[in-house]
């Protein structure tokens, strides 16, 4: 069974984000970049499926600028077999990403698409669901557990109020939540080996998809700053403040 894992290059989650002075975008100049954490979980899950003998090949794909090869190499070093970089501007909206990924799905014919539920830059949480819709596939979003058996995926999802388990007919799109697994660290020998694994670069134009903009970004601003309040010495002082100053209890 072939597993396709779409991944994204994003700012490292430890980087403190500042907004550019002209309010046009966030300032990512010189920021450390990384594989999106939810994508890392998706790559890890695919590798575990391969280790259990369920997956036979893991193909990672990203859409973006050529520098995103770095993140593809990270995924290859974790244990993916082959990588595709669809060369396109890194600012594409989720619907356009989903349209390009649909073409990759047509070409690669995977039985399972495993991907992060959201990227930590745009926080959109859309691409997996859109890809499933465009392919006519079922979807298992926010996965906390995954079993594959007899052409069916059994996925336990993190939902408001608890957990929900679904059975999906393959091929299907599964998006990963935080507790699906703990991604492995990459060893130095595996990093070296990853340099020799196949990575192809395909210009987005080759897929002949019309990539129309659907939104305009008018402004990016910093959120309102919340000032630190006061230090209190004991519980009585706190209760007094909550009752008489804030009037919330």
């Amino acid at each position, binding site marked *: 069974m072939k597993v396709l894992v779409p991944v994204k290059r994003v*700012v490292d*989650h430890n980087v*403190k*984000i500042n907004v550019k002075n002209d309010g046009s975008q*966030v300032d990512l100049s010189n920021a450390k970049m990384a594989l999106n954490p939810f994508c890392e979980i998706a790559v890890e899950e695919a590798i575990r499926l391969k280790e259990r003998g369920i997956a036979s090949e893991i193909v990672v794909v990203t859409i973006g600028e050529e520098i995103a090869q770095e993140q593809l190499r990270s995924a290859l070093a974790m244990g993916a077999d082959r990588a595709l970089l669809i060369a396109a501007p890194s600012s594409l*909206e*989720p*619907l356009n990403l*989903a349209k390009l990924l649909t073409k990759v799905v047509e070409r690669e014919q995977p039985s399972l698409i495993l991907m992060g539920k*959201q990227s*930590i*830059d745009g*926080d*959109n949480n*859309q*691409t*997996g*669901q*859109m*890809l499933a*819709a465009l392919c006519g596939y*079922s*979807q298992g*979003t*926010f996965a*906390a557990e995954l079993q594959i058996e007899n052409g069916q995926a059994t996925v336990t*999802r993190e*939902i*408001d*109020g*608890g957990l*929900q*388990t*679904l059975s*999906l*007919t393959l091929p*299907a799109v599964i998006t990963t939540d935080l*507790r699906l697994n703990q991604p492995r660290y990459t060893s130095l020998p595996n990093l070296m080996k990853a340099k020799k694994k196949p990575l192809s670069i395909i210009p987005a134009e080759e897929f002949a998809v019309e990539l129309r*903009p*659907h*939104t305009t*970004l*008018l402004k*990016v*601003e*910093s*959120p309102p700053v*919340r000032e*630190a*309040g*006061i*230090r*209190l010495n004991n*519980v009585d002082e*706190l*209760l007094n403040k*909550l009752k008489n100053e*804030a009037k*919330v*209890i």
Partner: protein
Amino acid sequence: MATLLLVEHDNHQLNAVTYNAVSAACELGNEVTLLVAGENCHGVAQQASHIAGVTNVLLADASAFKHQLAEPVAALIHALRQDYSHLLAVASTNGKNILPRVAALADVAQISDVIAILGPKSFKRPIYAGSAIATIESLDPLVIMTLRASSFPAASVSQSAAPITAVYGEDYQPISRFVDEQRVQSDRPQLATARVVVSGGRALGSRENFALIEQLADKLHGAVGASRAAVDAGMVANDLQVGQTGKIVAPELYIAVGISGAIQHLSGMSNAKVIVAINSDEEAPIFKIADYSLVGDLFEIVPQLVAKL
């Protein structure tokens, strides 16, 4: 111009976040139609018809919608779309699951997690875990968006009832099947809409110790929340996580106990009216945004609070 809003419910009860979403829908200035999709959920439709500002309620009552799976519900909304300029849902796990699927079928964008409506086509939404706020304008003929309920006030209840009309989905060949559900049973108020939230973090140390948080929450008739660290450590269920990828809350009072205040947690609660932080580490980032701070051992402070409330 007309707006369709997907109602949050569990076939028995309307979820209170729907009231917040209705007031957001009203800000668009269009007639507001609510869609209740489920099975044996006529009572929910009746509740929905009594929300002030609602003009119509559509009721899709069929076994295919019982568990509100994304595939049939998205197909239903897609079939209804031509009568509307705006399709809305709450940015709950349900809305996030269903609405992007509708957007792709309709070949338009989805705008996620809207926190302010500036006009029929322009909206504010947080990006980078709330480290920045983007103002977005839609270029699509149909605007599809999910709403962050805590950013909008709750609509009131109306004495008069909007008419309820039955709608039907098309025949649907299931490609996904519901197997099982484990709902966390609780008599406490719901996290997303509670007036008071008490959250615990890594410093609680164990599931047993987390009972302290529950005792404090119960004294204040509040909801219980948790940081990602506490959820990852198995102290509480995942649905209590407050933060970027969990619940977004904006209560009157938020008490953070033993939570250091990682950015992804702060993005889920920094709009609370009053924030109290209790932590033994006086350098903890949570103190930078707290209105009232107590530096000390939570295992001494919280029992004292419980005793004195």
